[in-house]
């Protein structure tokens, strides 16, 4: 089997799963909707105030929603045995992990990217900020899944996985959070977001290059 | 001696709370760590003794 076939097979299986089980992409979306709807009740409904916190709330909501799906990366496969199949396959593990993360990014990311601009209108943000937020979330979701894959791979067989995954991933999400939200804030203040945007993209590329390697090493360690 | 009296020393120019709060926290942390080190060592040695008692 060629390299391409193996990873596309992984990706295709992932998409079939998404089509069959709505909860896979609907749950993170629901979580995101709940977080974003709750905040105005806590801080008040003046549009000036909402505008100031809106970018942050939407961004953090998207990050947490993505974090919620991390256990899905490897846990089920470990339980039904298909993980062993992946590990024993003749393919570079990094490539297979990459295929899976890419599929998951689309599956989870697309609903979030569509929902983010909608919520930015509820937070009285102008249209250009809404677009920038969608772009920022589009970069942040795969970044978070990539760095999260390392933690998820390490904790496949460990106790207390969910909360520990969050502790491990939290420090690694800070750059994408700072630059992603920073770009939207820059647009809100009428300034150029180019620098923030390119730094956020750089962090994504950095994660893209290194984290499949780290995640495959992690998977080998935890399933040893 | 740069301090006029011991009470001046403890007062730290009116900032005693902040200075001694910092040093006190350091002291507590060190004592806590030393106690943790000690109890961990004790536990490890006890488990070795336990192992020895078994044939």
């Amino acid at each position, binding site marked *: 089997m060629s390299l391409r076939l193996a990873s596309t097979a992984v990706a295709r299986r992932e998409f079939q799963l998404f089509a069959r089980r709505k909860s896979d992409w609907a749950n993170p979306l629901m979580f995101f909707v709940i977080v974003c709807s709750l905040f105005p009740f806590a801080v008040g409904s003046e549009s000036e105030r909402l505008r100031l916190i809106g970018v942050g709330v939407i961004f953090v909501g998207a990050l947490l929603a993505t974090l919620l799906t991390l256990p899905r990366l490897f846990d089920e496969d470990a339980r039904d045995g298909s993980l062993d199949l992946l590990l024993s396959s003749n393919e570079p593990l990094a490539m297979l992990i990459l295929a899976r993360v890419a599929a998951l990014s689309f599956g989870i990311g697309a609903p979030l990217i569509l929902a983010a601009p909608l919520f930015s209108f509820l937070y009285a943000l102008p249209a250009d900020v809404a677009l920038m937020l969608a772009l920022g979330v589009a970069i942040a979701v795969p970044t978070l899944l990539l760095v999260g894959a390392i933690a998820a791979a390490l904790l496949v067989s*460990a106790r207390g996985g969910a909360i520990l995954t969050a502790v491990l991933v939290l420090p690694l999400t800070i750059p994408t959070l*700072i630059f992603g939200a920073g770009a939207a804030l820059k647009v809100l203040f009428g300034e150029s977001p180019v620098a923030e945007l390119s730094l956020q993209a750089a962090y994504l590329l950095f994660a893209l290059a290194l984290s499949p390697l780290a995640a495959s090493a992690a998977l080998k360690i935890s399933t040893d | 001696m740069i301090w006029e009296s011991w009470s001046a020393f403890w007062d730290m120019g009116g900032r005693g709370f902040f*200075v001694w709060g910092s040093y006190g926290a350091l002291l507590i942390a060190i004592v806590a760590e030393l106690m943790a*080190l000690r109890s961990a060592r004790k536990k490890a040695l006890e488990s070795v003794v336990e192992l020895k008692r078994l044939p």
Partner: protein
Amino acid sequence: MARTEQQSNDRFQGRWFWRYASPAAFYPVAGRIEKLSWALAAILAIVGLYIGFFRAPTDAQQGEVYRVIYIHVPAAWMAMIIYLAMAFWAATGLVLGTRLSFMMSHALAPTGAIMAVIALWTGALWGRPTWGTYWVWDARLTSTLILFFLYVGYIALAAAFDDKKKGDRASALIALVGAVNVPIIYFSVNWWNTLHQGSSVRPGSSSMASIMLTAMLIMTFAFWAYCVAAAMHRLRTQIIEREAETKWVKELVK
């Protein structure tokens, strides 16, 4: 593929450092280092505090409260240095497969976390009179907080595995991932801070009078010695725990 220690020992036989890569051989060495370090830490701390409190004058700008830096700055340095040392031993363990390296990482982590807490706590107490607030989202404070989270993650991960070997390698990997990310996080936080933080004065030491600097350097060495001693103690405990089945440990316990 993990090399067993026996194989690596064979491969590198004859090199002096491999003799001490064995826990049994390093145990007495660690004991000697530990004793020496406790003594050094005590002596240096006494000298440093004496100079810092009874020889160094009041700072013209900050008043007496500046004396917090004698512990604040060394603690902040140690929090960073210990993380680097931890990542170094983690990498050594992953590459060479030496058990002692992993134990060294584990021995360093709790002390590093404590140093980060002390740096944050004393920083807050110093900040209140100096800046007018216990906490600002300043770049340095924020990075130290994140460093503390990295320590917590490492410690929690190492404890999450029943299989010690797995825990060793898993936590070593996360230490390395953290070490690669520390400069990026530091850069991001710096960037973020310069853009969003409201009016405030940033911390920064001015040209420091030499006697204050002397006291601070002595205290820094005292912290070094303390951290080495604590790590060595913890290392010895781990060796006892992990080698409990061996003859030499059983002989150790009378």
